[in-house]
Structure formats: C-alpha cells, structure tokens
C-alpha cells in the first residue's frame, strides 16, 4: 500500500452499488464514516466500532467486511455493495428484503443493513442452508429487537426463493 501523509486528505474513489463515487479522506478516517458522511450513503450503520456487532457490514469485492474496521483509503479502487443496492432495478424489494418484510425480521432496523449484507454473501455460497448454518452465518451480527428466529425464517424463505428464481432463469 502506498505511503500516505498523516495530515493531508487523500482522494478515494470506489464503485458503490455499481456507481463510481469519490471523496477526500484523511488516512485515519474509517470507511464507515467515509461512506456515511462523505459519500452520503447513510444506509450502512455504525453500532460498536470494535467489530463485534456487525451493523456496519458491507461487501468489499464480494466479501462481507466490517466497514468500521477498515480505513477509507484502503477501499480505494474497490467494488463495494451496501443495503442501498439490494432493491431490484425498478425499486421494488429484492428477494432477501421481501423475505425480511414478510417475516417481521426487523424492528428498529438499525442492525438490518449489516445482517442483509452478511446474508447476501452467505446465500451466494449456500443456496440451501440448514438452520444451524444460518445461525453460524448470523453469529457476527447482533440484533437486540428480534430473537433472530424471524431473521432465520427470512433467510430460509429467501434461499428457497433464490433457488426458484435461479431455476426459472435457466
């Protein structure tokens, strides 16, 4: 990684949900802060800033990552996906969002962006997960409103719907 001067702001650019965004960041600025306050993508939330709660989880080059444990300058050139990119092109809910909606899988919705992104990655690799596998996938995301039960159900429903939609696409 290139050497950055501590006191200056550096140009950072990446693709966010398929659109190129850019801004300036001090080297120490967290990616979560950059996303929210420089780019204005406030859908990603910050819950603990020590990597435990998972609210700030986003996909960086397809991998679920904590945006509070990463610096903005490290994301330069990356492909980033967040909750704002989950809806269908026409704005309607994507499959995972719809499953959450129908299962009452959110209440306050603060942890939800991170959970949706964790599960987005998980469901790509696990089209037909067991309940135990889902629990492990969720273990890095804290929700204090629900009992996870609703979220697990949503994930099962989303997996089934994704399988159907893939089968239909073939």
């Amino acid at each position, binding site marked *: 990684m290139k050497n950055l001067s501590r006191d200056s702001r550096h140009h950072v650019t990446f693709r966010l949900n398929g659109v190129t965004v850019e801004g300036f960041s*001090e080297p*120490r*600025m967290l990616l979560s*802060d950059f996303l*929210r306050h420089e780019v204005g*993508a*406030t*859908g*990603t*939330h*910050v*819950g*603990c*800033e*020590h990597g*435990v*709660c998972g*609210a700030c989880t986003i996909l960086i080059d397809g991998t679920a990552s904590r945006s509070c444990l990463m610096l903005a300058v490290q994301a330069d050139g990356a492909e980033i996906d*967040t*909750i*704002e990119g*989950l*809806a269908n092109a026409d704005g309607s*809910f994507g499959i995972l*969002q719809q*499953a*959450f*909606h*129908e*299962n*009452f899988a*959110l*209440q*306050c*919705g*603060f*942890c*939800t*962006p991170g959970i*949706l992104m964790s599960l987005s990655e998980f469901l790509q690799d696990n089209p037909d997960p067991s309940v135990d596998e*889902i*629990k*492990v996938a*969720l*273990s*890095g*995301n*804290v*929700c*204090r*409103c*629900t*009992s*996870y*039960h*609703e*979220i*697990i*159900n949503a994930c099962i*429903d989303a997996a089934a719907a994704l399988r159907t939609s893939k089968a239909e696409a073939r």
Partner: protein
Amino acid sequence: MTKFAMPEEIREGDTHVGRRMLRVEDRSLLRGEGQFVDDVPVKKGTLHAAFLRSPHGHAEIINIDTSRAEEMPGVFAVLTGREVAEQTNPMIVGFENPIDYYGMAVDKVRYVGEPVVAVAAVDRYRAEDALDLIEVTYNVLRAAVDPVEACEPEAPLIHPRADSNCVSKRNFVHGEPDKAFAEADRTTELTIRYPRNSITPMETYAVLSEPNAETGGFDVLSNFQGPFSVHTVMALALRIRTASLRHRSPKNSGGSFGSKLVIFPYIVVLCVLARKARRPVKWIEDRLEHLSASSVAPNRVTRVEAAYGNDGIVTGLRLTHWDDHGAYLRAPMPAPIYRMHGVSTNGYDIRNLAVTNHIVMTNKCPTGAVRGFGGPQLYFAVERMMHKIATELGIDPLELMRRNMVRADQFPYKAIAGALLDSGDYLRTIDETVTEGGLDALKKRRDEARAQGKLYGIGYAACVEPSQSNMGYISTLKTGLERERAGPKDGAVASVTVSVDALGSVNVIGDSVPQGQGHQTALSQIVADQLGLDPEEIVVSLDTDTSKDGWSIAAGNYSCRFAPASASAAHQAAFRVREKMARIAATRLNVPPGDVEFSGGRIHAANNPENAIPFYRVGGLAHWSPSSLPDDVEPGIRETAMWNAPELTPTTANDEINTSLAYGFGFDFCGVEIDRDTGVVRVDHYVSAHDCGTILNPGLAEGQIRGSWASAWGATFIEEFCYDDDGTFRSGSFAEYLVPTATELPDFQIVHPTPHPSPYTRLGAKGIAEGNQYTTPVCVANAVADALGIEDVQLPLKPAKVLRWIGGAEPPPSKGIQTNAPAQRNPSAIEVSGQMEVPAPPQEVWDLLLDPDRMARLIPGCERLVKTGDDRFNGTVMLGVGPVKGRFDVNIELAELDAPRRTTLTGTADGPLGSSRGQGSFVIEDSAAGSTVAYDVSVELSGKVAAVGGRMIKGAARQLIDRFMRALVRQAGGGGQAAPARHRSGFLAWLMRLVGGGR
C-alpha cells in the same frame, strides 16, 4: 412465506385491527433509507462533541488543565463540569434530595465514565484528539460499590450533602403484615441479589443541539424516547422557558428498551456546549460510552419474607429492597421500584404486605429505564419465594402458585398495594399453557433424565404485566404530607391527531416516539377501521416536534404505553373525525348522522349502501366549502385526542397506588439440564404465554414477545455490568458485556391463551413488550433451583458460578497449563514475575537500570524519560492493549535501594485511556552468565483500558515485559534468552474463559 405460530388473522368482524399486516416501516428501513439522528443532514459548520471521562470510580478532581486543548486548531469550545454548574440548575428528580447533578462531574467524579470535560471541534476525530491534550489530576477515594454495604455508616459518602448513601428510605404497610406473620403456621425468608444489566440498543445516544437566538433557547434533535415530563427537567436546568426548548425526534430510532430516556442530561450539556461554541454541536455516543456511562437497570438486593399456612396459602409478604441507582438519580428515577409498587404481590391474592425501599447511591453508572422497569427484580424475589414455600411444604410449585392466584371472579381486583388488575383469568391461562406447552411430557422428561443421573429441573413463573404508567406513581415515594404540599399527580395523557385534507387523504401524527415496534403500521390499522379506508391510504408520521405537535408529559415510548394509550388516543381521534364527517355526509345523504357508515372509501346510509358519497368528497367540502357545512361544524378536519383513563388515580393517603392502567398476565414454564462437568445450563424446553387482551397486529405482538425473550435470555445467562471493589468498570465492549447472538439463543414455544381484553382501554389492548423480562430470569432460576436443590440462585448463570453450586471441585487443568497461584493482593491486579539471565555483571545491569537515557530506549513505547529527582523518574509511554492505544504520563519512584543488588519501585501511569498504579521489585544476583535479574511486578488498572482490555491485559503485560527484558539483554551486550514470564493466579481462570468456559 410465513411460519409464524400466531394465527394469520384474528379478525373481529371485518377489521384491520387484529390483522397480521406487514410493516409500513420496512419500506424505508429495508432500503437503507431510514432516518436516524446521525442520518439527518446538518448545517455546514456543525461541530462534533467528545467527552473526557473519569477513569476512576470515586475521586476528587484536583486540577483540570484544558489550555493545550483550547489552543488546538479546529477546537471551538472546551467545557468543564464547573462551567456547566455555573450556567445551569441541578437537574431535578421527583423528591427533595441531597444530590446536585449537572450531567458532568463537578469537583468530584463518582463513576467510571462520568463526563469531566466536553470538547466541540470541527469533526469527531479532532474532538477526540483534543481530549488527549487535557490533563486532569485526581485524588482517588475509596469507592462504595455494594448497595447494602454502601448504607453502612463507615462507607465512603458519595454526595457530601447527604448523611448517608441511602438517599431515600420508605416503609409501606398494607393490610396487617405483622399480625399475618405472628399468626402464620410458618414463615420463611430468602435474600436475592439481582444483577446490573441493560439491553444496549444497537443505535447509541445521538444529540444535535443548536442555540436559537429568537427564543433564547435551543433547537434539539435527538433520539430521546420520553417520557416528556423530562422536557421540563431539561428546560429548568437550562434556565429557559419550556417553550424555548424545541425538541425533535427523527422518524427512526435504533432501539432503546428504555435506555434513551436518560439521554436528557447529555442534551442539557450539549446545549451549554453549543452556546459556548456558538454553533450547532452534534454528539454520537460510542459503544464504550454507552456501556460504561449511559444507563442501566438498578441492581437490587431484596430480602423477601413470607408468612404462609400449612395449606400453602400465603397470608403475608415482607419485601425489603436495596435498590442500587449508581452515582446519581436522574428523573424519573428511582421510578422502577415504585412503578411496580402496586403489584408487589404479583398475581397472588395476598392481603398483608410490608415493603421497605432503600434508594442507594454507589460508585457506578447511574440508572435509567430498562425494559421491564423494576419488574424483573421484584418478580425474581416473589416467584423464587413461591418456589421456596412449595419446596418447604413438599407441594408442587405450580399447585402452590395456583392456590394463591387471583381468581377470575375477583376482577377487577384491587391488589393490597393499590393496583387495579383490570381483567384476566389467570388459572385458565395457566391451564391452557400447561396443556399446549406439554407440561406432562416435560415432567416425564425430567424423571427420565434424573433416572439417568442427569441434573434436570423444571421451573415456573407467572407475572402480572403492567402497561401504561400512572404519572403519579413516583409520588408514592413521598410521604402523604409531602404529596399534599406538591399537589396531585395522576393520569397519563396520550395524544394522537388525525386530519383529513381536501382530497380526502388522511394524516396521523402521534406522541408514541417508536423505536422499532411498528407503531405506524398499527395506528394505520386503527384509523383505517374507523374511517372505512384501507390502511395503505393512511399516512402516519411519528417523528415529533415539541413546538408543533400535540403532546403532554406522558408522551413517549416506555412501560408498554403504546397498546393501551396511543392506540386508544388514535381510536378516539379517528372516532371524532368519523363523527364530524358523518355529520357533513348526513346532510348530503339526507339521513341522520347516526345512520351513516364508512366503508370502502365511501360514506353511505346504513340501510341503503347505494345512497353514498365518496370519502374524499366530504374532505373536500370541509376545506373548500365551509358555507355548506352544518351550522355548528367547524371547517377543516383535524382532531387531536388527548386521551386519559380515569382509573389512573393519585396515590392514596395510605400509599395505595394504581401504578398502571392495564395489566396483562404471563405464565412460563421450562425444563433445564445442567452439565455436571462444565456448569453449563441448557434450556431444554421453554414455553411462554401472554394474555395481553386485544392483539392489534399479531406480527408486531409476536415480535415483542420474541424480542423480550431474547433480551431476557441474555439477562439470565450472560449479561452483567461488572465492577471491582474500587469501582473499576470491567464491561466496556461487546467482548466483555456479552449479548445473545443467533448461535446461542435457544428457540422457545409461544402459547396464545384466550385473550381477556382490558375494559379500560378503547380497544381492549394491553402492553405485551415486557412480559419475558419478568418471567424468564426467575423461571430459569426456579428450574436451576429444582435441578440442584439450592436456594441462592444468582444471575447471570455463568458456568463457573453454576459449577460452584453443583459443589464439585473444578476439574484439574489439562496438561500444559503452568500454574502457581498464591493469593493475590487485589483480585483485579495484574501480577507478573519472572527471572532472566543477563550477560553482564550486576553493577553494569544496575547502572543501566538507573540510566534514564538508556532505559528510554529499552522500555517499549517510551517516548521520553527523565530523572526528576533522587530516584524519581518521569516519562511518556505509548501503550496499546487490545483495541485501545494511548499515551501515558509515567512517574516512577525507586526505594529501598541496595546497589547493585535490589530495589523496589512504585509508580503511576495516567492518560486518556485510564490510570494505573503499580509496585514491584528487582533483585540482581551473580550468575555464571553474568547476572540473574528477578522481577516481580503488580499493576492495578482503571479507566478505559480496564473496561475494554480486561481480557487481554495479562497477555499484553507479559509481552511488554518480555520485550523489555529482551531489550535489556541486548543492551547489556549478550544474546541471552529471557525466561518466560510467569503469571500468577487468574491466568488459569483467564485461559479457561478464553477457551469457552466464560459464558
């Protein structure tokens, strides 16, 4: 898609109320378009605040030097507690007391995390930088941590104007408890220690404050949750008119569970800070701040005594509570204990009661509201006692509970302490739960498990679930005379406004300040039913603005207020709109207003649906043609209901109080199995039932039950705020304060018993969000007591603790763990000792150790080290432990020098991350290689580093010492190898926790 246990539709006739309608709120939240405080755009030039906080549980502030911080570029204001005290009044609570509370420390710090200095700077990063430049000198005092010991005369006094740390003591006598105890066949007693916990919402506190030159006050945006009675407290503290304190809450709040009530002291401080900075100032609390210094439920010690007959009928109850409220009381504290006063006898027909409440100050985080609000502590005592009586009599605990329950024919039932239990059939609820939940099968399972030698127990717990608090209950804390002087306090007003515009669109606003419960959805259902519309056609906005909305002191989101109060207010406002529109429509339809019905977007004659007018046309008439309205009908359509229930009466002369309006009923039972070897308590089967009257929306209601269960499971098994005896806080991150995740949270069975609607709420609905906070902890505790045959069950049920109750010795460690464990001086101290060979003679080593320039190069992170006097050194060291890193100002003094053989040292290290005090010795002896250096160091830590680094400190200390010793060997000229540092007692325990025994 659904797999929910609740019926898909609970329709009464053709209503939207009772439908499992999907949430309106999801539309924005699931798209990342919610609006939480930190999402709301701010003015350019808005500053960010950061707080320097106390590293000590109890200390005098000797000096605060903010000069370097004030000079830092980007810093606009630096504010001390002393300045806040000069510019504000102490924040009032509900009774005369000797505590001056300003939201920041003045002269003294009283808990770890207490704000000492606030900084406003151009961004949060710079504000936190500035904190590092502030120097505070403390004189550390002895701390009071245990609530019972804190009441003793020899305990350190936390507030100088008080004569005891017990700032309020009240005795209540209802019925004739002394007589009941004297005449009873039997009496028994039990002492309960209920721990400190919270529910730690995912969104922390957030405040934006801006001075308003027009009003002379402030415009505030925050995630404050109410009750808005506290708005008055803030305005009085700020010395401004209440109307000059404009408070807005945004559309979304990221959970609260009570905690965002006591954000208000921060609002006051942020207002003062913004005034000093002359700019808007925003503050987003971080997680460490939230865990250490926001709000917790009071921990409580309760001595419970019961008088009972040989038939198991309980005739008298005595409750003596020591309620630990931490360092300050903040309104409406100490409310939790008084909110439950009326239902001190739970759902039992016990007619003689004595209650003694000690409200105690300790050197811990001050308390606030937490879901359950005084109920978990109370019911833990009462339900453990019922279990104990059953055990003593050899009666099945459930049978004993049943014998004492209030019977169906007694409703409405006036409990001896004043609660007017509105409706229910407790025995029927229990019967339905037992049948549906499979109690018989569970008993068989227990018998089989026990036959195999397993530790298995069954527990039961029942609870009366209060909802919608009487705003007068806190006055019960005052004597009758004091109450008379202060004037009556009662009721609980809820406000909802329904308006219909010129095109018939319906807007609803309300004062319920939701934090995720789905209030918009439920209110749209209620209003839609009244107006014959689809809920989709109703727009509900629940962001609030005290300058524009209808609200009263009870506004907010707490104590299960929504279902009884806000729903009633919405029903009433919509009903009034309906009445008005019916009168307008009636003139067009040529029928009496009473014969008009609303359905399908039309208003029509009841007996002739063809005789109709569209809903929107009536809206149009009201706005566009006032002249065509009936003479006594005002133009426009906007109705605000300020709904109150007459049953919420003031405290009586003999201290009876109907603390809440509606009382649901909950009943749980469970089976647990306990692993003899690990002490892990596993919930094998758990059943929970709640009769909360009319269900507004089963999807929302079930979410509340499940959410309550999850947080109650956490309180039962893993959640606890831990303090050392000196007030050092140990639970500053989610690695220390454990909360349930998907992997450990078990599933449970919900039973939906026959509902008994409340006669006192407009829809018959009662609150449902708190039930499992009451039942689950004690239900599991009773099961553990049943499994182990023990009496003193203390939460949380961490395996190490349970293992001690089982009575077996801790199993020997696996091979490879080295242990030598003499007793430690302080259980929280880090003790490191070891020895090493250095290839240089003792004199050389000695000279090296006393040479500050050379030592500066050896000490890891040392930036500066100078000799300040005979055998005294001062330096600056940069150290990091786990997630935190910071600069420490180090002072070391050597003593008992015996050159070149031995010295003892004492030292302190202070910095933004905390403080430490240490002592130790070095002994140098001749050896074949040159010298042997033996060292023995003990260090105590407090502040941030102790709060978040606790689990890593010993490892970090070992690494530091190793690095230092290796450097010493190199400096002394050899390639010698340091013998590994050995860690005394505690290391084994730490390692055991690390490998999984800590839950």
